[in-house]
């Protein structure tokens, strides 16, 4: 591990200024991803600015009906919050399907969103990886790629985004509040994450010094009828092979509105806009769910070891929608 200086930030503006001034600086929150990367040599900052004690650790209802989740709120507190459980059950479910109890007590909202891919080659500094070392090549393309992307990948990188929380937030159309060197801005979560293209080293549109301060959840009544379904290699404590976050509004057996996002299939949480379009106005039937799933997954381009993800994603979506619409009856 490279030597680094440590500073505990007490105010967000000062934290942003400090990181902005130092090209080798990084924000530190719970450390559950960054400290791992320090040990592995994947990240080599020379200054860590600890933002976990910033006064960004509350969940509050905004006057316009939205809910603001501070960036330093721990994953466990967010998952257990009564308001979140009632209004956005998929969000709580997504968090509870991730990591373990003792990790969720450390992990923060901001850190969860900006955790990096679990691609084994990214984590192994002895192998080529365009995300870690631009231009070095992608070891997964011809290597072991069972966990990798089936949608939106490039020749440069086929990694998937690991966060469960981000998938639920994508279905919800949450907004990310950012404080950067030039001030505050709001980024819809659908625009936060990038596809790899020819710059896989950039996971998001954020720049050096950009601090996530909060995530705003829209007032979305149908989110009360939502779920997160995660398929993994073991029953618990594992990353997703495929996951689905969905919310539906069904009246008289007809889908009035629906929100769907997939996890585990792409470099970013995959909003299933095509499936949503096909489902709106349709009867809430298994046939309609399957048709929508197949249309969404038609552009899928599986790799040597992950073709199973295509039917798995389809059946996971069908099962999620079935569960939600049967409940409502």
């Amino acid at each position, binding site marked *: 591990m490279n030597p680094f200086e440590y500073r505990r930030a007490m105010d967000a503006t000062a934290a942003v200024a400090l990181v902005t001034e130092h090209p080798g600086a990084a924000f530190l929150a719970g450390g*559950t991803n960054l400290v791992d990367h320090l040990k592995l040599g994947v990240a080599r900052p020379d200054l*860590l600015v600890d933002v976990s004690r910033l006064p960004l650790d509350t969940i509050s209802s905004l006057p316009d009906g939205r809910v603001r989740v501070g960036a330093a709120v721990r994953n466990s507190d967010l998952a257990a919050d009564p308001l979140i459980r009632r209004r956005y059950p998929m969000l709580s479910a997504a968090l509870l399907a991730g990591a373990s109890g003792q990790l969720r007590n*450390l992990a923060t909202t901001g850190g969860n969103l900006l955790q990096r891919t679990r691609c084994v080659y990214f984590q192994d500094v002895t192998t080529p990886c365009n995300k870690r070392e631009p231009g070095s090549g992608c070891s997964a393309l011809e290597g072991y790629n069972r966990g990798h992307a089936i949608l939106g990948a490039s020749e440069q990188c086929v990694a998937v985004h690991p966060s469960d929380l981000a998938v639920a937030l994508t279905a919800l159309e949450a907004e990310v509040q950012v404080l950067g060197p030039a001030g505050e801005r709001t980024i819809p979560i659908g625009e936060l994450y990038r596809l790899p293209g020819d710059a896989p080293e950039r996971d998001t549109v954020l720049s050096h010094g950009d601090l996530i301060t909060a995530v705003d959840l829209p007032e979305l009544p149908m989110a009360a009828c939502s779920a997160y379904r995660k398929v993994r290699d073991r029953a618990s404590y594992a990353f997703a092979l495929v996951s689905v976050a969905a919310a539906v509004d069904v009246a008289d057996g007809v889908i009035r509105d629906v929100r769907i996002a997939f996890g585990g299939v792409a470099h970013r949480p995959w909003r299933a806009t095509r499936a949503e379009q096909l489902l709106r106005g349709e009867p809430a039937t298994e046939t309609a769910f399957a048709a929508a799933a197949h249309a969404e997954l038609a552009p899928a381009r599986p790799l040597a070891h992950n073709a199973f993800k295509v039917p798995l994603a389809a059946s996971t979506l069908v099962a999620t929608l079935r569960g939600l619409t049967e409940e409502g009856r």
Partner: protein
Amino acid sequence: MDESITLHVDGRKRSLTVDTRTTLLDALRERLGVTAPKKGCDHGQCGSCTVLLDGRRATTCLTLAVAHDGAEVVTADGLAEGDSLHPVQRAFLDHDGLQCGYCTPGQVCSAVGMLAEAAAGWPSHVTRDGAGRVELTDEEIRERMSGNLCRCGAYPNIVAAIREVAR
């Protein structure tokens, strides 16, 4: 780079200077000689380094010691009151919830933290939400303890021990 920090470990105030790169686990084990938390994987994947950090269960291998200046740490060593074991420790003995014992201090701290979480009404991945009180069925115990691996496979007895305390 060095930093001076103070930790309250198992009821004792401990001041020390650490290299900023030191994890909380290494500070406890290597610097303070507190060897109850164990280093299994050093990557957050096994739970053997679990302690109660400011009252909550937490892994210590993926968090820096400097980030916890002033923190209250309770390890499995600090759970007993004098000669009388903590009920969770007692139950692990009564139910043979261990074989080699390497994972046990982490299991015990995790169980203590988990029981408090359940008592506070925190749901888990297997909780059917809506129910106010959390009932610690075997399924719930297994899910909530999934961050603690036991390579001796003492799981059935670990679950039995925790079930008894949860009653």
